[in-house]
């Protein structure tokens, strides 16, 4: 079993995954780093792509998160979504990147494929303001419902825009 975990084995598994995806989606941008496969897809084919991944056996969605590349050196697109997937049957892992831009960044929701996407997408909506089209219940997850901004965007000031001062002041005579 020792060689099953060697670098070569992992690499060949990774190559298999890329080959099967590249055959189905021509022009797919992909890279491999130490056996970890990363593919970049466009928002247009996202739903079809993820449906295909699930058929390939990627039955677990580990995480959906986002990076704001505003003012990032060399970056051309603003928001980079990150999807981390695992096929529990084979132990394969896959990182999917999906880039969107202002204004009104939006991507298809994959909560119909993996139920764990529901809250993960709500969190990304809350923090980055990326709308997930087709999400059944796209409400804020962490911030209060009346909060207006998306605080993990890089153009949002660290100290906020006065939200933390937005409360009535109680004195002794208020009871």
């Amino acid at each position: 079993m020792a060689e099953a975990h060697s670098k070569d084995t992992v690499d060949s598994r990774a190559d298999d995954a890329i080959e099967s995806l590249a055959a189905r989606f021509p022009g797919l941008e992909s890279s491999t780093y130490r056996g970890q496969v990363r593919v970049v897809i466009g928002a247009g084919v996202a739903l079809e792509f993820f449906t295909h991944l699930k058929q390939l056996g990627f039955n677990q969605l580990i995480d959906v998160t986002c990076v704001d590349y505003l003012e990032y050196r060399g970056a051309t697109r603003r928001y980079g979504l990150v999807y981390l997937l695992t096929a529990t049957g084979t132990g394969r892992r896959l990182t999917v990147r999906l880039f969107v831009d202002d204004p009104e960044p939006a991507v298809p929701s994959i909560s119909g494929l993996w139920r764990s996407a529901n809250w993960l997408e709500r969190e990304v909506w809350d923090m980055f303001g990326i709308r997930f089209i087709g999400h059944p219940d796209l409400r804020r997850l962490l911030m209060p419902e009346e909060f207006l901004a998306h605080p993990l965007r890089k153009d949002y000031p660290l100290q906020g825009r006065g939200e933390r001062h937005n409360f009535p002041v109680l004195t002794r005579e208020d009871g």
Partner: protein
Amino acid sequence: MAIELPENVMVSRLDELASWCRKNSLWPMPFATACCGIELMATGAAKHDLARFGAEVFRFSPRQCDLMIVAGRVVMKMLPVLQRIWLQMHEPKWCISMGACASTGGVFDTYAVVQGIDRFIPVDMYVPGCPPRPEQLIQAIIDLQDKIQREGTITGREFDTSQRQLRKRALVDVTGVLQVDAARNPVIQRELRFPRSESRLP
């Protein structure tokens, strides 16, 4: 005219008697949100033994408490809860702001963390430290007992002085620094409409 008192009888003022009773049976409401809460628990536990000062009866129901100890950072989502609990506590009541975060926001100078609870509720004692040692909290409770004995009245008149009703400095700063958002900020708008002490909860 001299009145002879029987043995074991003392003469006092009613105010002082009430304050003496109150200060020796403070019932803390532990509003513990962070690591200060651990020190708060240690203060109440056997080693530091808050019972020596008559304040060991921690109650998680605000109706049964008269001393709120805010231990830890308060985020903007939590502040309405804190204010509601404060309003639910019976008079006379006091508040201890325990630790750097409750008093000033501490290192959490971010959009989500309230920069000191004294901006939104009255505070009687501040305990510095990150987190404070149990000895510091005990000192604050002793000091609060002194304060209650010194200025307490049976009708709670000491809470009605004009100095106690002063607005906190924070709101003035906010109107100065964050001009852009003043129009959208209901607190500032109410401050402008009802200056100072006329302002009330909605």
